[in-house]
């Protein structure tokens, strides 16, 4: 055979083109550098005492309480909503879907303003609520509502897709085995969507924990009542104690990484 120039065994030379690789590297740095910055500037020696300061502990405790409550609210209302959206045909379903998805794309501050106008003292139903003794703005309950408003769509959308794809014939098989509708839901449907339920719940909780804009607008920034961890971090960074802000930011980063680990099969496997 005549020599035919360079001819690699694997077909077309697989040399990575320079431009996209360079841009990809810049993108990678965009994500990596801030994290490196946090780690570099962290006051490691003072970290423990910063964490144990009363204000930081208050913010941490409040964040856990509000984010878990918001997740609870999201589960209580979001699971039925996702089920109805997936399984019941009714007029206006698309509108409801758009409305429930909106908080995901809406600037959270706008969400907070909207919540004020609806549930605030002079809002659409706020007056009625106030007369009934329910005060939401500038209360811990208000922070929970703001977080649920922003975070619930993550649970609903994840779960709705799961309800839609769950094999309904399995539910029918369960009916023929003597299970009523509620039992079918508990014993068959929920286990079938369990992976999505876990993913949606974790996602919803992470979003609630990080909520800033809607909370500060609707619920305010009152230490021990509505000043959650992100609000505390912001205040500290602007004010007297940037080191505390860095330490608490690291706490939130750790939580986020833990969420990624929980959801790794869903998001990190590139298949």
């Amino acid at each position, binding site marked *: 055979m005549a020599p035919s120039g360079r001819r690699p065994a694997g077909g077309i030379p697989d040399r990575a083109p320079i431009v996209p690789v360079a841009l990809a590297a810049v993108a990678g740095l965009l994500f990596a550098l801030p994290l490196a910055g946090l780690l570099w500037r962290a006051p490691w020696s003072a970290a423990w005492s910063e964490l144990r300061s009363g204000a930081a502990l208050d913010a941490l405790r409040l964040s856990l309480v509000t984010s878990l409550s918001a997740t609870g609210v999201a589960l209580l209302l979001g699971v039925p909503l996702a089920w109805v959206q997936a399984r019941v045909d009714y007029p206006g379903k698309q509108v409801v879907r758009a409305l429930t998805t909106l908080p995901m794309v809406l600037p959270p501050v706008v969400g907070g303003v909207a919540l004020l106008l609806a549930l605030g003292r002079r809002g659409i139903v706020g007056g009625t609520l106030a007369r009934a003794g329910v005060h939401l703005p500038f209360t811990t309950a208000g922070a929970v509502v703001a977080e649920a408003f922003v975070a619930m769509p993550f649970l609903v959308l994840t779960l709705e897709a799961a309800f839609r794809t769950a*094999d309904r014939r399995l539910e*029918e*098989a369960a009916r*023929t*085995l*003597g*299970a009523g509708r509620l039992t079918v839901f508990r014993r068959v449907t929920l286990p*079938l969507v369990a992976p999505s339920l876990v993913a949606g719940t974790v996602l919803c909780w992470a979003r609630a924990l990080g909520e800033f804009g809607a909370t500060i607008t609707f619920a305010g920034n009152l230490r021990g009542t509505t000043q959650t961890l992100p609000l505390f971090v912001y205040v500290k960074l602007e004010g007297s104690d940037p080191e505390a802000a860095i330490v608490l930011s690291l706490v939130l980063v750790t939580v986020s990484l833990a969420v990624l680990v929980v959801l790794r099969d869903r998001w990190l496997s590139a298949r």
Partner: protein
Amino acid sequence: MSLVADVGVELDGFSLDVELTIDAGRTAAVIGANGAGKTTLVRALAGLRPLSSGRIDLDGAVLDEPATATYIPPERRSVGVVFQDDLLFPHLSALDNVAFGLRRGGRRRADARRSAAAWLERVGLAGRERARPDQLSGGQAQRVALARALALNPALLLLDEPLAALDATTRNETRRELRRHLATFPGVRILITHDPVDAAALADHIVVLDRGRVAQVGSPGEVTARPRSRWVAELIGTNLFSGAAAGGRVALDGGGALTIADRSPAGRVFAVAHPRAVSVHRHRPEGSARNTWPGRIATVEPLGDRLRVRIEGVPAIVAEVTASAATEIGLVPGSDVWVAVKATEIEVYPE
């Protein structure tokens, strides 16, 4: 103890109207092409699709009757279903799949599990209690599904193409297994299938469905021997013999024997020869056909563009010939002829 059903279901563009009466301890095979309404019938009987008209009466209790606004939901019917793709619950072990219905029936967990384990043993799956459905083979999964339905001892057992999703070998095994379990099941059984071999092997009674209507009813022998339409003939009008196979020969139960191409089958078998593969001759044929025997023409019936010729002999057989061939060799009832079937044209299934 019986099922008396007049099933009327209207779906967009399709209507099902089927009358069925089946006694307990009997198996009816409902056979039909895709779209004939077989699955709709199962769904209606199970209560997964309410009737549009008619009435379903099981052991004297009305399950569904639109005229009197009676409708018993599936979970309150004594109807068991074995679905085509087993439909085992993927999150439960084989044992808990079988125990599922027992638990719903109010049995305590330990009791339900004991009973489920006994059922798994009866279907030959002892030791696989903890397996998840995705760890079971297709045949094993279908046996779990059968155990799950039988464990509730329903008054009516619906088998919706239980063998269709299985490969040929598993299918034969599972069919034999199914036959054994049906024999001891006391209730009414309905087998949905599109396979005449399944119908003949498992049923006492065949109901042929065509586009939502009953096209023909009868014993497997009657229906395969005397299909009432071209369509039924195409579907199930085949020669089906049972007998004992050994060394490439099948000794038929009704007398006579057939030589088959495959020497491996042994024991009880079904031998199937399509009427088109049967040739009819005036004189003893000299050729490659390994099976030839004399007979006398009983009937000649036109069926579309062909004639269906029934020949009495040992064994009796049905042949399909073209009209021109029939006139050429003078096929009329009473004439003596020879029948030839190639060994390679005979399919054999274990009984």
